[in-house]
């Protein structure tokens, strides 16, 4: 019964995110305050239903519902929307939703298409590490997802400034510097979280399987992702790779995450069977 409720709220949030995405795209075409308010309302209502569905699943399973591909992707989307609202509240960035809600919606659609059945958790995964490790990992990934979204905004805006086409969208997008700053902040938020996720993952692997690192595909891809973001930060501080380069790299970093996510799920190998 609870799972039925969870599935219903999941569907409601899926539809509301779709609406938010469409309002966001409409907002790109034409400035309109009501459309922006509708976008935020739809995203907010979607987020509430989404939170409800995660809460129900938590209630049923007794642990964070991130143990099958459906739940994991859905939780990923939830983190993205959460950080979106934090950013929106903190910076009041025009048009952010137009670039972020498509990401959230795409994640929700993939989540809906993935197998939903709840399998009993294997004893190895039944540990406090599950919550700690995965929450770090997902918040980090969500920060990187937003950094990529903001990176796209930067590229669009830079294109306008460079080609001197200063139309309506140029007027409404934030300044290059604020987009670059927010991109940098998201990466400096995501990177330590990602590092923590790797450390806790290693500790967990050690207690579960007796070894810190076993080069399973998930671990390898995580390492690649970690290096990409380490390079972004390093190059920015030392070589001044800001602006365009930072934006491109953060999009590349996010693509790596998606490949890791999708590829490993398709292969279904290694110990990270669920994620």
């Amino acid at each position, binding site marked *: 019964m609870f799972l039925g409720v969870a599935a219903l709220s999941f569907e409601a949030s899926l539809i509301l995110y779709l609406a938010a995405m469409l309002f966001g795209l409409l907002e790109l075409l034409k400035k309109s305050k009501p459309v922006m308010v509708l976008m935020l309302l739809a995203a907010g209502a979607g987020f509430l239903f989404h939170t409800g569905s995660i809460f129900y699943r938590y209630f049923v399973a007794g642990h964070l519902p991130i143990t099958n591909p459906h739940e994991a992707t859905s939780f990923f989307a939830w983190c993205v929307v959460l950080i979106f609202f934090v950013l929106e509240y903190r910076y009041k960035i025009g048009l952010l939703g137009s670039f972020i809600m498509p990401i959230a919606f795409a994640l929700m659609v993939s989540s809906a298409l993935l197998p939903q059945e709840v399998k009993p958790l294997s004893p190895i995964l039944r540990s406090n590490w599950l919550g700690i490790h995965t929450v770090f990992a997902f918040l980090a990934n969500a920060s990187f997802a937003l950094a990529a979204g903001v990176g796209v905004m930067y590229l669009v*805006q830079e294109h306008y*400034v*460079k080609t*001197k086409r*200063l139309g309506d969208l*140029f*007027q409404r997008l*934030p*300044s*290059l*510097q*604020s987009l670059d*700053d927010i991109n940098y902040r998201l990466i400096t938020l995501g990177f330590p979280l990602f590092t923590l996720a790797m450390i806790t993952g290693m500790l967990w692997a050690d207690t579960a399987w007796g070894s810190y690192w076993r080069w399973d595909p998930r671990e390898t891809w995580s390492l690649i992702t970690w290096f990409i973001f380490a390079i972004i930060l390093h190059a920015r501080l030392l*070589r*001044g*790779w*800001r*602006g*365009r*380069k930072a934006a491109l790299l953060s999009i590349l970093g996010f693509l790596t995450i998606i490949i890791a996510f999708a590829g490993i799920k398709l292969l279904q190998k290694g110990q990270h069977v669920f994620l």
Partner: protein
Amino acid sequence: MRVLVVGLNHKSADVEVREKLAFNGDKLEEGLRRLKALPEVKEAVIISTCNRVEMYASVDDPARAAESITAFLSDFHGLETEPLKRSLYFREDKDAIRHIFRVASSLDSMVVGEPQILGQVKGAFAFGLERKSTGVVLNKLLKKAISVAKRVRTETKIAENAVSISFAAVELAKKIFTDLSGKSVMLLGAGEMAELAAMHLKSSGVKEILVANRTYERGVELAEHFGGRPVRFESFKEEMVHSDIILCSTGAPTYVIKRDDAHRIMKERKQRPMFMIDISVPRNLDPAINGLENVYLYDVDDLQGVVDANMGERKKEAEKAEEIVSEELESFERWASSLDSIPAIISLRDKAEHIKNQELQKLMNKLDLDEKEQKAVEYMASAIVNKLIHPPTAALKDEMEDRDLLIATIRKLYDLNGD
């Protein structure tokens, strides 16, 4: 209710005429007092800016009032009436109302959409209120004009986007850097537009302005003018490492900064973004610089392009604004015409009240009634009177097309014309 405007603006009169007719400083107080004192003028407001001098008045007879205001102007400013008349425009009623709506909304300004005019209209209204030169009509009219202007401001983009090259440069700077307060500007060479842009940047709060000029002394002078720091022209490239905005108008025959210079400087400043504005003709900054990362180079044509596009945008928005003005004009007219029936309603009431009191008095003298009975009789008289005059009063208040005819009819039927 009749409204009249007598005025002149940048279209109807040259600046020599406008400055002679301006009501500056003490002249405004004296002028408004004398304008209000004219027998043909019931209420008055004077708007006097560098682009217009206008007198708004509520009057009974616009033609006579126009004559008398013209005479007053010529007397007050010591000008001959006939040449003065050629610079003036006179608008009545609906045209006058539309005019003030357009003025306040900045549709009648030299630069359409410029924001100062609304403040000037508000100031003129406040001055009139303070000096008690306004009344029901002008109060309502000016309040409405101000609210129309606000509606235009919020519902159209008429005041958005810079329409001068120097402002366009500042607006662009704000789209590259979030906040100009920590930024450093370098002025290369001196030119009117570059100086103007530097002035705007300074008022947007940039941290410092460096001035490099070929003649060092002139550079020192300019730097003093901006509260900036003079730099030797030979060493400006070293200083550029710390400058975020470069304003160039050197008038040199070749490029003063080449692509390679800019490339090296960008490396040295660790790619922190740089905005370069080249106002010189021929260009003094290598156009290839725009191809470098994190550098944004705009020359005078680019900026002019931005300004033209913005001007076009404003024109489109001005059309929307005209529609808003027409809409508001209609609703204001409905209110204004409802005022016409007020004197008739008041006379009707007064007449009815007067008859009632007279008849009551007669009756009371004849009969000897106690207090309670008196009250009852008075009550009945009032009720009859009120019920009888209610339908015509309501009809007068109604919005209808042939209200004038109705007013005339009711005045005739009740013989109200005597008062």
